[in-house]
């Protein structure tokens, strides 16, 4: 992926992370993109050096208790490329993206 040619989905994901949605399923929920898009995009962005990632300490997850999270963070070049991309995709100014409808538990 060359510089300055971020896809729409990648831009949305970077935007979400910069808005404080820092881990996989949170990003999925906030962007409304499917997991099969988000995770590969996260890996690509990380490979391109726009993101760094880190697993949270297992103890935190155990205390909550909930599954352990892998936190993503924008790097400096990530922030730069996001600013560029947001200029191109003007629509994104209307952030934060809308919340996705939550599936409801069954009555059973």
């Amino acid at each position, binding site marked *: 992926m060359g510089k300055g040619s971020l896809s729409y989905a990648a831009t949305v994901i970077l935007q979400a992370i910069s808005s404080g949605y820092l881990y996989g*399923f949170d990003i999925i929920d906030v962007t409304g993109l499917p*997991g*099969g898009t988000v995770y590969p995009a996260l890996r690509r962005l990380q490979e391109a050096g726009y993101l760094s990632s880190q697993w949270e300490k297992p103890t935190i997850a155990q205390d909550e208790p909930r599954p352990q*999270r892998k936190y993503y963070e924008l790097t400096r070049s990530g922030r730069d490329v996001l600013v560029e991309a947001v200029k191109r995709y003007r629509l994104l100014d209307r952030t934060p993206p809308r919340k996705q409808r939550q599936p409801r538990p*069954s*009555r059973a």
Partner: protein
Amino acid sequence: MFSNFHWRRLVSKPHLNLIALIGIIVPTRLRADWRQEWEAELQHRELLLASWDRLDFRNKLHLMRRSASAFWDALWIQRQRWEDEMFQDLRYGSRMLLKRPGFTLTVIFILSLGVGASTAIFSAVNPILFESLPYPEARQMMMMWDHGPDGARQEVTFGTYREISERSRSFESLTVMRPWQPTLTGQAEPERLEGQRVSASYFDVLRVMPTLGRIFDPSDDRPNGAKVAILSDKLWQRRFGADSGIIGRQISLDDDNYTVVGVMPNTFENVLAPSGDVWTLLQYDSSLPTFESREWGHHLRMIGRLRSGIGRDEVSRDIDAIARTQTSEFPRPAWSALKNGLIVNSLQDEITRDIKPALLAIFFAVLLVLAIACVNVTNLLLARGAQRRGEFAIRNALGAGRLRVVRQLVTESLLLTFLGGALGMLVAEFGVRALIALSPPGLLRASAIRVDAAAFAFAIVVTMLIGIVVGLIPALHAYRADLVGSLKLTSRQSVGGQQLIRQALVVAEVALALVLLVSAGLLMISLQRLFAIPAGFNASNLLTLRVQTSRRFDTQATQRFFVQSLNAVRQVPGVTAVELTSQLPLSGDVDQYGVHFENDNQKVGYSSFRYAVSPGYLEMMEIPLRRGRSLDSHDVAAAPLAAVISESLAKHKWGDQDPIGQRVRLGPSDGPWHTIVGVVGDVKQTSLAASDLHAFYTTPDQWRFSDNTMSLVIRAAGNTASLMPAIREAIWSVNKDQPIVQVAMMDDLLAASEAERRFALILFETFGLAALALAGAGIYGVISYSVTERTREIGVRLALGAERRNVLSLIMRQGLKLTLSGIGLGLLLAWAVTRLLTNLLYGVSATDPLIFGGVAFVLIVVALLACYWPARRATRIDPLIALRQE
């Protein structure tokens, strides 16, 4: 809420299992991290919903879809696999293979032949031997036979069919059938069709429905019922231009009008009549009026579809019970065989009964070739591995584990075998075409022979097995080897254990090749012996024409037509002789009648071939007259009835006494007496191997029925075949509506009668030669390699005064030792295995010492040749150079 126990339960859920499954394709070093992230994602989803057990179906599906999306993620990660060790191995392996193109191509070539040949043969035998028949629930289909007088299978009577279908509870449906060869007339020239007369339930039993129209209506299946026909797709396309308006139209078969009621789909494969194109109803009388009627003739094949849940044993018991208890409702004639029960067997077994031994033998043979090819490739890989010891030692010293080296070798051999397998598929494709071209006519399910999914799967499994087995032997060898020691050696130096394996492999190879060659040899001798058997008549340059007359012709018209045709053909310039016969030897005709002798209480007559022949036929065919006189022009309808019998029948009844003047009844035991006027030599009717030689000859005038199909046999000066157009014109000048149904040179009929054996022989010869070449190459490889290894030793010997002659014999002895061990082992193997071929052999024992000895001799010669070149190279070693090498 989240006890440890609960977490474990979460992992056992299907959406998480799916992640674990997809995780397999994620490169190992990334896998743990990848799985953890996805599992967290899904657990999070689940927490948002409810725990798995409490989810409804839609939400479960939603979760499963989410886990499935991990697949795209996993796929994307594949890019990073290039850094994986496996791909390193592959890339390195490909480089190594490209570096030695000669070695690589040889291995790929050998493997592709092995895989290709075995896949082609598998494609041919699979539909017949392993696949079930192309009908729904084919396992439930049974075929039934009466017990014949000598325990053989005999076709059933309509009476038996009636009784079984009324009394038995085991069958969902039952049907009987017999061949039917009607002549189709109309706009185009008359054509004889292959077809079947069947009972109305025929297509119910097969469970096949027509694409157009309907199947038969049971109410039409009675004497004088409506004349209806169902056509094959092939006939419909060919003769009726695939006109969908054909249903309800009339076509003319045997000069009767039949209404077409159905057209079968083009996918319909009929194993009961592979070339059948038209079906009509049997229309027998199910009230079974008398015992003398056709309803009590043994000429029907019966198949039935069992009710589900009923097995072969149950139906046999059921039929036995019916057979034992005769009821007044179903009277049986005295000769009815039903009281002995019926032979019940699955349809699949019954229709493959004749061809199975040959196909199994051929399949077995090709597997042997494959095994030899594998042994050869293993040997090549071993030699190659030995050359690379230094390389492995260096890799090991640099930190590569032994397992890594083993994996490298297995990767390389898998790469090689997959290339070989891919090329092998191409070979298989061509092989299948060759097989179809070579296959004996009427080979069962020939249309199903192709490289299909099953054959493809076979090839892949075979290829993978070869890749692993062939790769593991050298790899394990590399694993065990003393790598540190190897570092000190150069590739030239010998490592004892390896040479031992290679020698063992060559011994195995020679043994397997011997088994194949012995089998091929036995078949070859069989065929030679068969063709050396006199057919009993002079078959050379003899043209045969089978002519079928209209069924509208009465006896006189039929006879007039044949006599006029005979005379017309006699006028054709170049024709020197032409005669008529009701049945042609070795053409597939089988027309047998019982012969009863005077003053003989025998109830069942001697089964004999019946020939109604024009006077002069016996002389023209050069069937030798042994006693009495031949048939002549005085044996007309009004003259006393005369018969000529075969030598074998005469001997059987009278031994060496003179049968001339004795009287016989031909056919039904209430028929008129014929006086034996002559005895002629035996003629082979069904095949050259046949031993049933009883026969009698009469003139057509003196036979009680007129034959509406007769064959003309024609001799001419020069090339008889070239006279064909003139002969055809001559017959049609008599009546242009009579079809010539078969034209053949007698030599071709003779060859065709043994087509199955010949087919097996061609394949065995091909495989045998391939095995011989591979074994020779194997011996050459091992000896050549050993000479290279022993260069220094030979140099020392030469330097110390050994003669070149001694060196030559040293190397030759080594090769011969291997070959002889292989031959010893092979002889034992062959002795155990060739008896499986017994059915295909004729006039030769399965353990014929001459063949065994001859093949062993051929192998020794090949081995000596294969050893000679390396041995000669050894004698040319320059001691000075050899010693300087270290």
